């Protein structure tokens, strides 16, 4: 597969992610920030996000698993995750956070737990998709090509 083809595939892939709502325009902003001075910017941010989110989701499960659920803490975690998801353009994950927070306000534990599950799923999905994306980008760069930027 030549570089051109790879780039085309990447673009298609990104567009599909867009359509599915897994990513949104904010991700394109990130890509635009990447330049020669910072060629791995997107990958770094994404990795940072993953690490951070995992911690948050962990804390969330812990918090929800307590005997006396501290909804404030849960809400705080969710809020954090919402912020970082929004920052990298993880739309679906962000939306899950929004619903999650509503349930937190209502102190609806069951709903929160369901949300947590959904959140974990969305997270895994996002992670796998982004991993693919980053890998392809890497290949393109290795092959001497440049990473196409999504247009919104």
């Amino acid at each position, binding site marked *: 597969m030549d570089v051109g083809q790879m780039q085309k595939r990447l673009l298609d892939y990104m567009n599909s992610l867009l359509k599915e709502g897994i990513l949104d325009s904010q991700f394109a902003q990130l890509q635009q920030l990447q330049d020669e001075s910072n060629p791995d910017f997107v990958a770094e941010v994404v990795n940072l996000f993953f690490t951070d989110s995992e911690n948050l989701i962990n804390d969330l499960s812990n918090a929800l*698993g307590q005997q006396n659920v501290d909804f404030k803490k849960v809400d705080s975690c969710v809020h954090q995750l919402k912020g970082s998801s929004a920052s990298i353009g993880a739309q679906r994950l962000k939306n899950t956070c929004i619903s999650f927070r509503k349930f937190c306000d209502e102190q609806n534990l069951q709903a929160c737990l369901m949300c947590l599950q959904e959140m974990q799923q969305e997270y895994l999905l996002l992670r796998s998709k982004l*991993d693919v994306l980053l890998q392809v980008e890497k290949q393109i760069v290795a092959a001497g090509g440049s990473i196409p930027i999504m247009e919104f």
Partner: protein
Amino acid sequence: MSTSTWKSGESVSEQFPAGLRVLVVDDDPTCLKIVEKMLKTCNYEVTTCNRAEKALALLQAHRNGFDIVISDVHMPDMDGFKLLERIGLEMDLPVIMMSADDGKQVVMKGVTHGACDYLIKPIRIEELKNIWQHVVRKRKNEWKELEQSTSIEDGVDRAHKQSEDADYSSSANEGGNWKSSKRRKDEEDELEERDDTSTLKKPRVVWSVELHQQFVAAVNQLGIDKAVPKKILELMNVPGLTRENVASHLQKYRLYLRRLSGVSQHQGGVSNSFMGTQDATFSPISSLTGLDLQTLAVTGQLPPQSLATLQAVGFARPSPKSGLSIPMIDQRNLFSFDNSKFKFGEGQGQQQQQQPNLGNNKQLNLLHGIPTTMEPKQLANLHQSLENISNMQVPVSQGNSILMHRGTARLPPNVGQPVTSNGLPGGLLPRNGHAENGRGAGGYTNPVPQTTSSAALTFPLNHGTELPGTNSFPPLGSPPGIQSLTHKGQFPQDITVNSEIKGSTAGGFIPGYYVLNDLQQLRSHDWELQNVGLNFDSPQSASSLPGSLESASSSLYVQQGISRSGPLRNSSSGGSKPSFPVEGTHNQNLGSIVNSSVRIKSENVVDAGCPSTLYPEHFGQEDLMSALLKQQEGIGPGNPDFDFDGYNIDNIPV
């Protein structure tokens, strides 16, 4: 925390706004990195910080080193609004708030707390491009107010100001000539440091607390509407005081009152300024100090440097909310500008007492920064030591100043009660309200050092230098070992160090984030301790409870993000077909989850009481505040119109 080169004093010039020095504070590493990159793309000089305390230390250590601050609203160690206040008071820098929260109330809070803008996450680069306007605007407003306030003063000062104004207006118009106005400020700052009252053409009036009290008493007696400088002067009967002195002081005072009433109208209580989150029946008294400074700062009367030194050791006895009781400050700094800075008087008074009382925070008046047993003579004596201390605060090494600040910052606001009454570092519990533990320790620190540093931090008083915890938070991405393990398409085995990490997380989390130490908090500590114990100190028992949920999650999401769990391998290596073993494991645990949830529900009542412990800082402070207020309420002349009870407290020997 990444840094850019410091350019103290000398800042942008022709290429403005390029080179604008921005400090970004956000505990979300993802967002921090993104915003940093965006700002750099805008050709700004960026410094990032993931802790509010760190940010404050940075700002204090590098006066005139920053032009603008961007801060997140929700941060674990300090509420963003609090930071906003502190910065406004101490450094008088424009602050932009940002948050994923776009609720009207929160945005309103930003406005009332003095944020010059409020950005909703996700931040777009376009929004950051124009932040320089806030810097210009603020400077312009400051000079304007200064100009107005000094209009009554004698010609010498007027001429002085006018030349400054001319300098500034040109820079404002050009939008780029920072050098002249900055240099001017730097010169003035320098002036403050030297003992230069002799070089000033006119002797400055020292508006000490006593003097100010007399002033206020006179004003109250006359009635705020009828209070004219001449009559006030007569009532005060202070030799050497001129009508002009009183006039300018009166103007400041009026501005201050206006500001007070304006804020309370909006927010239904000045308390909001300090409470950050919940507002309760908050007495105006405690708000005074903060507002005073804020007024001072905002009206540009308080040179950033003095403000900074003002606050340098402020935490020693911060009013529980804002931590603004003015600590030591070089007296000269206060008066180097002109005598219109009446607030300095009280500040001075406050600072005076701070020092000797460092060791025994028994005086409640500290809340308002009102000196208790300070006699004028003592003030003079303290002057010397204060000088030394304030000098210390402007050292070359950042570390020193940070330590200095930190050391005092560590002092429990309420009263020298060590936070260890419950056996746990104070900072741990309240802060635990957030996912801080996971985040703080996980991505950035190694388990080992944290535990030790946590122990060290429990005695802030004695261990001003024991701040390794805070300072030791490695910059983003620093634990290469950890980072490299993730997201490289490889999935090493589980590193189930759950218990160790958890335990150490608890320790690692502590560093530096317990500004909130008062009685209430300590009490609540005990309660929360149990929970915390569950969560962190005894991970084993914790897992037995919601055990299933936890183990399931832990197997999926490695603690502290150190590694990926087994089941996830499939999803990542192939890349095309993510499998979701999650569902399976979760289903199994649903049963137990339901059980625990039933248990949880039945204890909702208790739970309701829990939240209060989460942010004991605010609540505790409130309680403490109201307790104090009750104490003092009966003493003051009780003129509620001015909300100035704090200054009328009679227990201050004059």
